[in-house]
């Protein structure tokens, strides 16, 4: 197990505006080493938007996100996207599995551009029980298998923060259990996890954030746009 790190990641007073409509506002969150945050809320409440915001793909319309390392000054996470991107793994709605590349090539590429090695590819295939897909091209994989390859990618090159947008989509029960175990190991090593879900993912000791609590109650023109 790697040395527990003491990274912290938090957001203050975040506002998300999509298509001139406030999706959520005055949202605060905080993640400490080993922490997990479960995002719940009805469709359109901004779970995916918040995850994309945390990843740096979406700029907050208001508020800020901060990242602090051991004994370091907190820094604005949205300032240096390359630096921030290196700290996190994002699993979105798309699986980013190329149809003409095999599972090993797909995972290997993402691992190598993050400085991972060949040995971690086998390990990551093991975690999600897809060794048999090693040399199978993406076009012959089912939706669940592609999702497993996508999840194996985040095992193959370590990063302290995992942002998982409905990771259990298309997964069978046994694989959801494997994902829960992987998340637990990641947290034991000091990693942080944020995931959005509609089904139950067993993450002991996690905090829950209901996005519906931060929905805009007033029309847009009463707010100051940033």
């Amino acid at each position, binding site marked *: 197990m790697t040395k527990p790190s003491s990274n912290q990641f938090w957001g203050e007073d975040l506002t998300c505006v999509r298509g001139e409509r406030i999706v959520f506002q005055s949202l605060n969150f905080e993640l400490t080493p080993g922490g997990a945050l479960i995002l719940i809320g009805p469709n359109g409440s901004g779970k995916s938007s918040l995850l994309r915001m945390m990843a740096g*793909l979406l700029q907050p319309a208001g508020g800020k996100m901060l990242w602090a390392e051991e004994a370091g000054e907190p820094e604005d996470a949205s300032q240096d996207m390359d630096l921030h991107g290196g700290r996190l793994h994002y699993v979105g*709605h798309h699986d*980013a599995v190329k149809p003409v590349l095999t599972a090993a090539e797909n995972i290997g590429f993402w691992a*190598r*551009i*993050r400085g991972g090695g060949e040995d971690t590819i086998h390990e990551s295939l093991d975690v999600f029980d897809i060794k048999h897909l090693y040399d199978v091209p993406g076009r012959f994989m089912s939706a669940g298998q592609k999702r497993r390859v996508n999840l194996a990618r985040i095992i193959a090159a370590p990063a302290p923060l995992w942002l998982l947008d409905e990771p259990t989509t298309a997964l069978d029960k046994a694989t959801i259990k494997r994902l829960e175990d992987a998340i637990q190991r990641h947290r034991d090593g000091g990693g942080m996890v944020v995931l959005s879900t509609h089904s139950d993912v067993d993450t002991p000791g996690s905090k829950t954030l209901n996005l519906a609590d931060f929905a805009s109650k007033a029309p847009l023109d009463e707010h100051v746009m940033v």
Partner: protein
Amino acid sequence: MAKFMELVKRDLALAFRQGMDSLMVVAFFIIAVVLFPFGVGPEVNTLAKIAGGTIWVAALLSSMLSLERLFQTDYDDGSLELLALAPIPLEVTVLAKVVAHWLTTGLPLIITAPLLAVLMQLPMDGFGTLILALALGTPTLSLIGAVGAALILGSRRGGVLLSLLVLPLYIPILIFGVSAVDAAIFDEAVRPHMLFLGALFVGALALTPWAAAAGLRQALE
């Protein structure tokens, strides 16, 4: 640098296994040029006069043909988000994709061009210059094209929009590319035209990765 090569290798692997893209570009290039002798007649002098221009215009059009897919497939399957999040500056990623694009489309065009020059009765004096001008000009086409390809992400009918955005910007390359070939044929100085092509290439190399990366960030929001 190792990561840059990794990106180029991936795009090359994708291009070769997805197969037909490069071949289609070359096939289009050949067919487009071959149409001209049918259109203007097989008279040697007429063909020789328009040879340089025809080959250049056909090269512009065929290089544009494959631009739409430069970022589109990565955008559709979510790879682009992950590339943006990778600890590599997005500008470098863009440059790697442009290099791969040029290797799979620009380079085959340069290799095919002499054959078409024979077909178009281009005088022998122009051959070397044509190849050299294409070698200087086609990377610029890929670079400028990358900006257009980034801007059309997420729009419908992207292909048509792309040609409207990119073709006007190709005009300077066309002008200096053709005048270089003409200068060689009429035994005038080729060097100034080549210098202009070189300047366009260096300028595009310095500016377009930033513009394209900004376009990609916009598309991902």
